[in-house]
């Protein structure tokens, strides 16, 4: 038994191991958490990389529950010029290795591979059929570092050990995975950065001993995220079909935005009342009517925004406060459906409470529109709502990094050309 095991719950231990990474953490992880998993079958993996929902469980209300542990690996192309056929073969084999090793499910491994504007810039041709802008600050009060690695791999599993082992296999640090011989992509890519995290009931409470959260363990045991409420309700999520690129050579792909957000929850838990938290997360009417029980399990498959005033501006003028969900929900398509599909997760990276906001959408513009709605700059204009104060949850977060990526269809996930 490793000495760190004393007094540490299994969940805490796995989370710590995912955050630390590396083979030491992995072997410790495997000692404690040894899922008996079948191997995988590449032929059964969907043609669209981002189609995970059928492979994920649902809660009692039909909401999709994301995998509990996440690792995101940012990769730099190690070669010069444009990738070769050999490079493509190496990368193809590496990703197929993962599919052979684990079943495509929350208990096995789900993953996507994406490429940045910086990656495509090495080609003379423009990226065809997809608008993939470089990342930028998306609010007047944020100054994020812009992530521009070449590629991004998002690994997700209910088992931290699986996500970690998959990362190690990609980096060429192990040759077998779940008993299957595997190969890595380390001859083609260097790891530039990594992000780790978790989402799901119990995990935030088990990992709340970090900077940014008061010391008296305020996070609810049932909360799937640090702020204490459920999110990702079916009615607030775009469908996988809706976020799929419909036309052009990358039809069947999607775009991905990943931001790293630092959370400051001392005020949220020490100073705001429950009523203020409900008002700022959902809407003032939910607080006034006491509509949210606990972490919001009673809300079913949506945050019941129909019960909030239809006009956010009205709340802004008369209540001096607007809710995060209430604002964000204004970003909808012509069918009144949300524009983005959130697959975000909390984090203890760097010893700080954080949120890796990973979302997929048909175009980055859909993300920008959603973030604009969340900023509520229009709402605060003539009202008593502040730029960040009483303006949803903007007061409690600082966006530290942003990055944009194209997630091509699975058949093109190995070093795609911009105009295939």
């Amino acid at each position, binding site marked *: 038994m490793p000495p760190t095991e004393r007094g540490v719950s299994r969940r805490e231990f796995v989370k710590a191991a995912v955050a630390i990474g590396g083979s030491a953490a992995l072997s410790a992880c495997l000692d404690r958490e040894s899922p008996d998993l079948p191997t995988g079958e590449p032929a059964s993996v969907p043609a669209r990389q981002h189609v995970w929902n059928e492979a994920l469980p649902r809660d009692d209300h039909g909401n999709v529950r994301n995998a509990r542990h996440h690792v995101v690996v940012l990769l730099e192309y190690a070669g010069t010029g444009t990738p070769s056929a050999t490079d493509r073969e190496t990368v193809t084999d590496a990703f197929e290795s993962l599919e052979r090793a684990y079943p495509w499910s929350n208990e096995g491994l789900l993953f996507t591979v994406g490429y940045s504007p910086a990656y495509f810039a090495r080609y003379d041709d423009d990226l065809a059929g997809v608008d993939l802008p470089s990342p930028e600050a998306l609010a007047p009060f944020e100054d994020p570092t812009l992530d521009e690695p070449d590629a991004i791999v998002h690994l997700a599993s209910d088992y931290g050990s699986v996500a970690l082992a998959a990362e190690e296999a990609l980096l060429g640090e192990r040759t077998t995975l779940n008993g299957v011989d595997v190969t890595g992509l380390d001859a083609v890519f260097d790891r530039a950065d990594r992000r780790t995290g978790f989402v799901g009931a119990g995990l935030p409470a088990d990992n709340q001993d970090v900077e940014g959260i008061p010391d008296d363990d305020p996070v609810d045991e049932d909360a799937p995220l640090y702020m204490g409420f459920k999110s990702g309700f079916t009615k607030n999520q775009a469908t996988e079909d809706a976020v799929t690129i419909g036309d052009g050579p990358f039809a069947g792909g999607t775009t991905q935005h990943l931001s790293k957000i630092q959370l400051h929850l*001392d*005020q949220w838990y020490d100073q705001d009342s429950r009523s203020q938290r409900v008002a700022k997360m959902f809407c003032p009417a939910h607080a*006034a009517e006491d509509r949210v029980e606990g972490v919001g399990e009673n809300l079913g498959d949506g945050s019941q925004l129909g019960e909030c005033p239809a006009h956010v501006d009205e709340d802004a003028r008369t209540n001096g406060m607007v809710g995060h969900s209430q604002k964000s929900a204004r970003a909808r398509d012509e069918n009144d459906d949300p524009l983005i599909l959130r697959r975000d997760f909390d984090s203890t990276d760097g010893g700080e409470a954080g949120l890796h906001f990973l979302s997929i959408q048909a175009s980055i513009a859909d993300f920008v529109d959603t973030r604009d709605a969340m900023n509520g700059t229009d709402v605060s204009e003539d009202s008593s709502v502040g730029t960040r104060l009483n303006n949803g949850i903007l007061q409690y977060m600082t966006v530290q990094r942003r990055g944009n990526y194209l997630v091509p269809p699975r058949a093109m996930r190995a070093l795609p050309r911009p105009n295939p």
Partner: protein
Amino acid sequence: MDRTPPTRRAVLGGIAGLGTASLAGCSGLFERQSVGNPPVVEDRPNAVYYPSHIEGMGMIGTEQAGDRTIGLMYSYAHRFWTMNVGGTTERVSPSGDAHLMVSVWDGESGRVLPIRSGLSVTIEQDGEEVDSRTPWTMLSQNMGFHYGDNVGLDGDGTYTVTVETGGLSIDRLGEFTDRFGDPVTAEFEWEFSQSARGEIMFRQLDNAGETGAVSPMSDMMMPLSIAPAEGDMPGRVLATGESGDATFVATAGEREGSQYLAISPRTPHNRYVLPQMALSATVTRGDETVFDGPLSPAIGPRRGYHYGTTIDSNVESGDDLTITVDSPPQISRHEGYETAFLSMPDLSLTVE
């Protein structure tokens, strides 16, 4: 948030024997005050009132950052009130080691620049973050508008405090038009010690609970968010009135060739501006509606912070002016302001 307020007995025990005269400069006694502020007075009026006690503040420094001057101050961690849904206030119990305060002003005009910028503060020690947050916008009797919050520190030592202002997004008039739009950052070194904090003035008031306000501090070498006197407002004074213990001054002046209606609500006694309100106005002349609409928060070098709009036709003597407070000031309040400016009925005024 009213979590676990100290019992009355504990509070009285903590301050027993502290006569008001004996407090100044007596650091050993002040250690106790963070766990035992005098209790909030009972039967507070729905108006500005003298708080249980007043505190001085320690100046950490002022820095010039681009076109703004930023001052950083601190005092004892103390209770304050945030705004809750439905125009009520929510008491925040004191916690942490100090109440940290930031003021941002224009060095030329001396105007304090309130709200709409998303100002944030980061505290570090030896390169490690100790605290980071978006402080509340606040109103206190001795300082007026500022940004503030209680913060926790890692004991005595040297801290680096970084203030990022964000860009001011409210309407700006005159010489302010193209200014203050960009974020600026200032860095302060803060030598914190509990003993130095204990030197800060702390005095209980004999007249606590009576209507009125302690005077603005005069010795900090920094401007305060005081609204222009009625006679100093540009343009013509249309009317004045009161609602929710605030005084409203309505003026009509000129802005870039148009008529400009400016309404300047201010606190009684100290004349501080009241930020983060939502106001609408209606001007009628007999059966005719001259103006009906919302006002926007704005700031100018002469009018200071106010709520204004351009209007198409002149406001005339005898017109009826109705000012509606769509929401009262959403600013957090230091003691003595938390029961005022909440219920604010319409003002029905006749233009002079």
